[in-house]
């Protein structure tokens, strides 16, 4: 039974259970609602939840587990010596899956019978041509061991799916039976339902933990794989980034980290003074009218998607900078050879971060108590003296926290650097040169047909994990500082 049908069936059963539970308890109570412990809807909901929740939960676990189990048993059929030169187990397994899918289509479409499939022999029949006729395109000829694996893959999947259907439906039935028999007027249906709902709410909240665990694990496993194929010392301490798909790559994070930090530094150089002064002006000088207009306008900058900034960097700011600093530029300096550069990406990222810095600083400056300003003004200080010598020093920890948050944003930003920074990994202090960043490399190593067994692809996971750790560390530090700061004035 297809998955969607199974889900719909379970849901239909649950819906039916709802009405049956309701009707039954009302009948038992002789139609008198006052004889019930809970309202009728709770009896109905109890039945519905008993039908749906265990069944769907088992289904989800099954969906997650079955592919791994089958894969593990089938991949044992492919001996290491059978893997062709230049390929690997993963690629062979994806062939196996594709062939198995093809066989499935053939059977469900009625083009081949089950027996025909079982009898098919790759040494005799051209499986690729045969499946091609049925509209299943295969990239290469099917070798006997692949076909054999595909057959057992298919049969395991079919058995698994049948078993899955049976177990899920059985669970739904059992849930229905138990809850139905419990549906009596004195049954505390509301308490049971509320406990179940609470459990669901809790499960939803736990998804946050699950996501984090998912992020860490998914990158950790592949990173471990990567370090199995590539020397970790080269990754952390090497000085060259030169992926080479024939093998023998030098994959060091340091030049990428340099590019990332350099661009982020330029971005902060643009965003922090502008953002901070804007926040100071808005919170200390501007009248309510100016604030009501300027603040939302500035915040529009924060709502613009990064792809827009990326395009702006690539097509507007980059060429503009070349026109100024390039070979035939207006300044005649010849410093810049292409539109992509550290400066291009840095400036545009800085523009993006202006509202981020200004709204965070605005909050933080506003948290400085008014009595502090009064104290200074009352001594005859000018507003600017008050701001520079009292408000800013008092707000400094919070502002540092805000800048760290902005830095973490800049480090993790992808589209602007992908489009504006360039692709050359190097250590250079020249902001007019194009450089590359961690995020850019993640995108370029993982887009296109990556081979998930080569260090050149897997390095992206190690880069991702490093990026995650770096930004997480900055965030935790920043949030800690900001919280400490706020507590001081509460």
């Amino acid at each position, binding site marked *: 039974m297809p998955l969607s049908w199974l889900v719909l069936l379970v849901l239909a059963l649950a819906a039916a259970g709802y009405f049956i539970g309701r009707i039954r308890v009302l009948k038992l109570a002789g139609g008198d609602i006052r004889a019930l412990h809970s309202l009728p809807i709770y009896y109905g909901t109890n039945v519905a939840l008993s039908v749906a929740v265990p069944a769907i939960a088992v289904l989800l676990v099954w969906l997650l587990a079955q592919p791994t189990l089958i894969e593990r048993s089938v991949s044992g059929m492919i001996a290491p010596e059978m893997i062709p030169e230049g390929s690997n187990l993963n690629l062979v397994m994806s062939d196996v899956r594709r062939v198995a899918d093809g066989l499935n289509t053939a059977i469900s479409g009625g083009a081949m019978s089950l027996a025909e499939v079982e009898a098919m022999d790759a040494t005799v029949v051209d499986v690729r041509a045969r499946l091609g006729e049925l509209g299943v395109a295969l990239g290469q000829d099917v070798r006997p061991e692949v076909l054999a694996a595909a057959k057992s893959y298919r049969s395991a999947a079919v058995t698994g799916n049948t078993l899955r259907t049976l177990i899920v439906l059985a669970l739904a039935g059992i849930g229905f039976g138990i809850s139905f028999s419990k549906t009596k007027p004195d049954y505390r249906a509301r308490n049971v339902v509320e406990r179940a709902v609470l459990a669901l709410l809790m499960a939803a909240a736990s998804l946050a933990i699950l996501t984090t665990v998912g992020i860490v694990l998914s990158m950790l496993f592949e990173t471990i794989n990567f370090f199995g194929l590539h020397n970790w010392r080269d990754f952390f301490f090497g000085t060259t980034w030169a992926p080479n798909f024939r093998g023998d790559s030098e994959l060091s994070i340091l030049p990428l980290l340099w590019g990332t930090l350099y661009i982020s530094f330029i971005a902060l150089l643009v965003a922090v003074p502008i953002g901070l*002064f804007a926040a100071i002006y808005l919170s200390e000088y501007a009248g309510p009218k100016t604030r009501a207009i300027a603040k939302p306008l500035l915040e529009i900058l924060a709502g613009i998607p990064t792809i827009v900034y990326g395009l702006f960097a690539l097509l507007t700011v980059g060429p503009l900078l070349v026109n100024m600093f390039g070979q035939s530029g207006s300044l005649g300096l010849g410093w810049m050879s292409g539109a992509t550069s550290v400066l291009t990406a840095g400036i545009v990222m800085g523009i993006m971060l202006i509202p981020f810095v200004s709204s965070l600083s605005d909050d933080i400056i506003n948290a400085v108590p008014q009595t502090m300003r009064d104290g200074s003004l009352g001594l005859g200080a000018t507003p600017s003296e008050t701001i520079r010598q009292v408000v800013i020093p008092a707000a400094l920890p919070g502002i540092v926290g805000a800048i760290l948050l902005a830095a973490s944003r800049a480090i993790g930003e992808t589209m602007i650097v*992908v489009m504006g920074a360039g692709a050359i990994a190097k250590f250079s202090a020249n902001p007019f040169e194009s450089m590359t960043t961690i995020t850019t490399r993640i995108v370029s190593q993982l887009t296109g047909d990556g081979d998930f067994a080569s260090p050149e692809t897997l390095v992206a996971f190690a880069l991702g994990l490093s990026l995650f750790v770096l930004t997480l560390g900055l965030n935790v530090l920043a949030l800690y500082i900001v919280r400490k700061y706020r507590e001081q004035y509460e």
Partner: protein
Amino acid sequence: MTDTTQNTGAVTPISSLHTLDARTKRRNAAENRFKLYGMIAIGIGLLMLVTLLTTILSKGTGAFTQTFVTMEVELLESKLDKSGERDLEKIKKVTTFGYAPLIKTAFEKTVEIHGIETDLKSKTMAKILSKSAASQLRNYVIANPDQIGQTIEFRFLANSRVDGYMKGRVTRDSIANDKNITPAQLDFVDQLIEAGALKKTFNIDFIIGADASDQRPEAAGIGVAMMGSLFMMLVVLALALPIGVAASIYLEEFAPKNWITDIIEVNISNLAAVPSIVFGILGLAVFINYMHLPQSAPLVGGLVLTLMTLPTIIISTRAALKAVPPSIRDAALGVGASKMQAVFHHVLPLAAPGILTGTIIGLAQALGETAPLLLIGMIGFIASNMPETVGEGLLSPNSAMPAQIYEWAKRADPAFYERAWGGIIILLIFLISMNTLAVLLRRRFERRW
């Protein structure tokens, strides 16, 4: 002013308040400078906003118009349906090559009708059309087989150089080394303009059409990618809203103060700041490599964006729940409602506008997100047809608006750049409408307790 007349016998002040000493003047100058820095900062911010918006508008509006050549075409039965049976299968067998002669003839006829004097051969004339002109005509014939044998007026897409010429992007100087167009062809274009056969008009296909290969920027549209975005948003809405609301209700109303709750809270605030590309890696590793969900599918994109949007929705939903005063809960509990009933019957409906506003803003964020989509393969020239069913919309490979824009920007052709800017206009229109809706909802339902 008469300073000392009034207070007879008073100590004469050392310095009068009515004269500024040099130091105060200096300090006031510093004050004004400081204030000016603030104004300059705001000015720069606003200037950037204006620059960005005018750049987008000035470069992108061109994408909404397109140059067409309108000609009379005779749909010769001898070429298109030799059997004369109007059998669709047979008509479909005629490839675009079969249509090329019709177009050439059409040009010859057009030149004749308008009395255009030119040395160009009809084959060279036909080159001013898009490479998809023939398939345009073929699609029309397949849709209207009854028109075969008649002469129809047909609007052909001009190619991107001619379009660029009409929009001022291409000039006679700039085509010196261009193999795709010659000055003679431009002369011919001028003659056609004069004759009224070549015109720049509004191009609905940009908004509803599909992407085209990198040889035919004039035929590319963002419509299919828009559908991809739409399906992703449906997934995000269907998953992130219920899960986010459930999680918020738990954390705000039921969670005991213990270390598990603390861990969840810390997790949520940190997830909100995880770079989006990391979610892309998660999607690639878990949904595609592990669970073998189809690559490039809006479903997977939606799942990734759901995980990314959840923290935003949870944070705003919790704020909305927190804004409902405890007295409402007390009132419900006081008449014997259970805590769950108090929350679902009273608190949640009162917090609904706030939750909705937060959800819309979360969706708007997700709509503009690009980086994670690149990793799960929603990039490149993927889908050329509109999905026909919901299942197909969710599972068949597609792109999304921001990814499509990125794809165009990568193609390094000014004609595609124009489309990228145009795509941004459409994307921004969506974002602006969503945010306006959120603001309106907040204004309409905002309650001060």
